[in-house]
């Protein structure tokens, strides 16, 4: 078996040697060894490739010279002598006659190198017989486009939508159209020229000069939605997303990963929220995607009168519980630190909230969980993503809201609502802590002040200090150095608030957010950040006294709206 990387790999060539190729699709749990051997700023796939090679499980690897990272992967794997046989096939950037000839020569060179390395003879007929035309399954499907998606991501999309999924990233669109004569000829020169032509005539990836052929991917009438995947430190696809989002006739959701298994959880949240917004709710315990207040009211009157409903938002920093009655009136709320276990915190928090309201577990008709820990909470009857819950909660708190800015401990999100209160679009920060509550927490620690003090401190600033680093680690050392320069703490905190606001306003732009804006999540309590975001948006933010409870409130309202 030969480990390889993308659709430009000449897998039929290796069939001519009696060898099979498999694409590396597993998102690894750790990239530590790869980062030590290369650099953290390579894309996750490149690092996964190095990690796989260093595992000692790969005897043969064929790489394609398609980007800087692949070239460096080849250097690193060769230097580590991690595979018995390692090959690199040159791939042109353009597809003119010179490039076809050049690729045909590369194919023949690869054939010769493999023959020399293994002593196996190449059989042209076997190679020609390996070409196959695959017909796509008919029926509606969700496409994954963009940068290479790992197996776990593909599974997450399939589970969320309950539909067929086509992975149309680096491996999925492989389809070679070989002329019949080239599959019969004994002339190897003629065959390899046609082979090179067919490889370059595929639906191009974004590293090719002319990407117009990719538009065909958007025009299939069976396409129901697009999950557009970008990968940290792969720069080719981000810009295409903007073009796809404006051109596609179906909804598009952008997600970003670093190609590790750890990022699966965040990806799952986004994909499920997208499925909810589109009305595909398989795997989500049968919730309708509607978040409108009217829907909840109607359901209450018909089915849920006299009972209570709870929402549990299990976040990275705090666990929040809201209990509402059949009218949607808040009966009890509680916020506790999440601590070590999502499940344990949730149980304790729910029990305390019930006790506070003078209720028992039996008084609850339905419990909905949300937040990062939602899948691990035994208490819930169903779980819904925090995107949908925040939309429901915010809409309940103020029906005029069109954009929600939610900055929590671990992530920040911007959710844009349509006129009916449905989620129209949402974007989230990436895995990095920049622009989140965690960022402010780290900076408060560096300044030796509490988060409460930080909230007010920056309001009385005099000098406009720019914190240029949004990376939490770099920013921390920048803050320490500003303290060493005797800069005023007010001014430093102001700079930090501006830094969070800059990151947030970029998300607002990406989400196409418009006013009125509501801010939710724990950071809504930080007056400095709120003021800085208001300055950037040129509008006041609606900040409810229930801002931190918005996700749990939405979950409780959804529990009330859809009793089974």
């Amino acid at each position: 078996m030969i480990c390889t990387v993308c659709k430009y790999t000449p897998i039929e060539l290796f069939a001519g040697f009696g060898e099979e190729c498999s694409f590396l699709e597993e998102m690894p749990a750790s990239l530590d060894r790869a980062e030590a051997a290369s650099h953290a700023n390579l894309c996750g796939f490149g690092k996964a490739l190095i990690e796989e090679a260093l595992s000692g499980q790969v005897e043969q690897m064929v790489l394609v010279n398609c980007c800087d990272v692949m070239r460096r992967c080849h250097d690193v794997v060769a230097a580590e002598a991690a595979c018995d046989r390692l090959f690199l096939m040159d791939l042109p950037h353009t597809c003119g006659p010179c490039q076809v000839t050049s690729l045909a020569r590369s194919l023949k060179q690869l054939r010769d190198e493999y023959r020399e390395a293994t002593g196996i003879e190449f059989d042209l007929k076997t190679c020609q017989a390996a070409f196959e035309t695959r017909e796509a399954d008919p029926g509606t499907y969700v496409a994954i486009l963009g940068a290479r998606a790992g197996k776990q991501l593909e599974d997450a999309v399939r589970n969320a939508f309950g539909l067929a999924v086509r992975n149309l990233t680096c491996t999925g669109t492989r389809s070679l159209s070989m002329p019949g004569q080239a599959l019969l000829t004994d002339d190897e020169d003629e065959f390899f020229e046609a082979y090179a032509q067919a490889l370059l005539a595929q639906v191009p990836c974004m590293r090719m000069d002319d990407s117009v052929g990719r538009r065909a991917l958007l025009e299939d009438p069976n396409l129901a939605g697009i999950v557009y995947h970008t990968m940290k430190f792969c720069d080719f696809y981000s810009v295409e997303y903007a073009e796809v989002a404006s051109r596609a006739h179906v909804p598009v959701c952008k997600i970003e990963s670093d190609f590790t298994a750890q990022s699966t959880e965040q990806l799952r949240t986004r994909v499920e929220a997208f499925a909810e917004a589109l009305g595909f709710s398989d795997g989500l315990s049968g919730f309708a995607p509607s978040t409108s207040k009217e829907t909840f009211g109607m359901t209450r009157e018909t089915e849920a009168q006299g009972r209570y409903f709870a929402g549990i938002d299990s976040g990275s920093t705090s666990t929040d519980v809201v209990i509402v009655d059949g009218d949607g009136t808040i009966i009890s709320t509680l916020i506790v630190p999440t601590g070590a276990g999502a499940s344990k915190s949730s149980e304790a928090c729910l029990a305390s909230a019930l006790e506070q309201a003078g209720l028992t577990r039996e008084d609850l008709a339905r419990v909905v969980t949300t937040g990062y820990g939602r899948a691990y909470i035994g208490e819930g009857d169903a779980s819904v993503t925090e995107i949908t819950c925040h939309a429901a909660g915010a809409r309940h708190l103020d029906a005029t809201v069109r954009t929600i800015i939610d900055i929590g401990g671990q992530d920040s999100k911007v959710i844009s609502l349509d006129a009916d209160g449905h989620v129209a679009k949402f974007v989230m920060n990436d895995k990095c802590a920049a622009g989140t509550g965690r960022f402010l927490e780290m900076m408060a620690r560096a300044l030796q002040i509490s988060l409460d003090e930080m909230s007010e401190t920056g309001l009385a600033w005099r000098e406009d200090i720019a914190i240029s680093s949004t990376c939490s680690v770099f920013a921390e050392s920048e803050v320490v150095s500003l303290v060493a320069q005797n800069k005023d703490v007010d001014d430093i905190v102001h700079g930090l608030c501006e830094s969070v606001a800059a990151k947030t306003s970029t998300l607002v732009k990406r989400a196409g957010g418009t006013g009125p804006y509501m801010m939710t999540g724990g950071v809504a309590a930080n007056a400095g950040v709120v003021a800085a975001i208001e300055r950037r948006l040129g509008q006041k933010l609606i900040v409810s006294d229930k801002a931190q409870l918005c996700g749990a409130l939405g979950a409780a309202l959804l529990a009330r709206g859809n009793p089974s």
Partner: protein
Amino acid sequence: MDVVRTFGTIVSNTARTDADRARKLLLFGWKAQMLKLCAAPDKRLPKSRQYAAQVAMRKVLDVYADPSHAAAMSVFAPYEPLGAAGITPFSVEQISCWMAGSQAERFFLDAASDAGFTETMCSYHRTFLGACASGVLPRPAFAVYTSLACDGNLITFPWLGRTQDIPRFCIDVPYERSEQSVADVVAQLHGLVDFVGEQVGRPVSDEALRTTCERSWKSALAWRRFLAASPGRRLPADMTSEMYAFLMNHVVLGSPESERFCTMLADEMEGARRSEGLRIVWLHTMPFSQAPAIERLNFNDRVFITACDLASDPMLIDVDPADPYDAMARRLVYSCMNGPVQARIDRALDMVRRTQADGVIVFGHWGCKATLGASSLIAAGLEDAGVPCLALDGDGIDAVNRSDGQTATRLDAFIEQLEAGRRA
């Protein structure tokens, strides 16, 4: 008041609503800078480097004054066909450096993000793309680029074609460093020369092309003389001047200006004062605007840069100037940026030998995967050859990706290491 910072703020604020006006403001500011460079050049610099600063500024002014006779190019694309056709080239790195020098880069970086470019991409390319997307960079007549060295080019130039309908020509440089690859590139260069002729409305003359290539070769020979005279001497310089040399030896290599610059530089180095300071070979772009690097490496007799691979590499590849196509192709195929990382290690060792350097700094510019992914291998390769090497991460343009504290500590520790090595 910090005049440049104020200028950058005004340009940025204007660009938000009026790209034409922002462009005129930049042109006004850069003309003022040109006057300063001519009337009151930095006296700490030798005449050759003062001249390079003036030429570099003049070329950017020419682009802004008459973009219809200008072409965007990737830095490794050959200048000769453009020069022979009377076209003014400008590179991604050149425009970005000027935006950063005007302290307006933040606006353009944000504009690139708004256009969809990821923040992990090279900031030189992002600044350039932001300038294009915002309309502040004038539309050139056409674009020429190569697949060599940087993915940023493979994103930037096709995007220019897709969104701004700019005619473009790409030279695919095969990965293999071989004579067959040279022949492949020669065939493509003939296509490039035809393309340039079509764009300007008249064929590029063979004679003009040959003359330009001969000047490239004379420049290369002068550069080699400059490096050969370097051991034991120091010609005062700053990182900005090193970046000018990078532009002179690529973007206008083959122009009368490049030949004059290299000749002046060699003459001045041969007459330069002797120095016992630490001698550094630098790999990749330079953090020319980052304070801790400036404090330690600019105009400092204790430690200074003797050569940079970006500026030196094209001058150290043997070519036959009588065969212009072969000469241009050879510079691309045998560039140290092409092929396995060993080529880069070999070039670094070559520069260490030529300039008798004490150590090497390989600068990991944030978005450059080609260098970042190779930096540990380069460091290991050099250290195996007995040459101390520091892998220094940072960003040439975007301050967000820098840590001043870390840069200062790493540079100081490396200087201490080299000084200890001298004492041993």
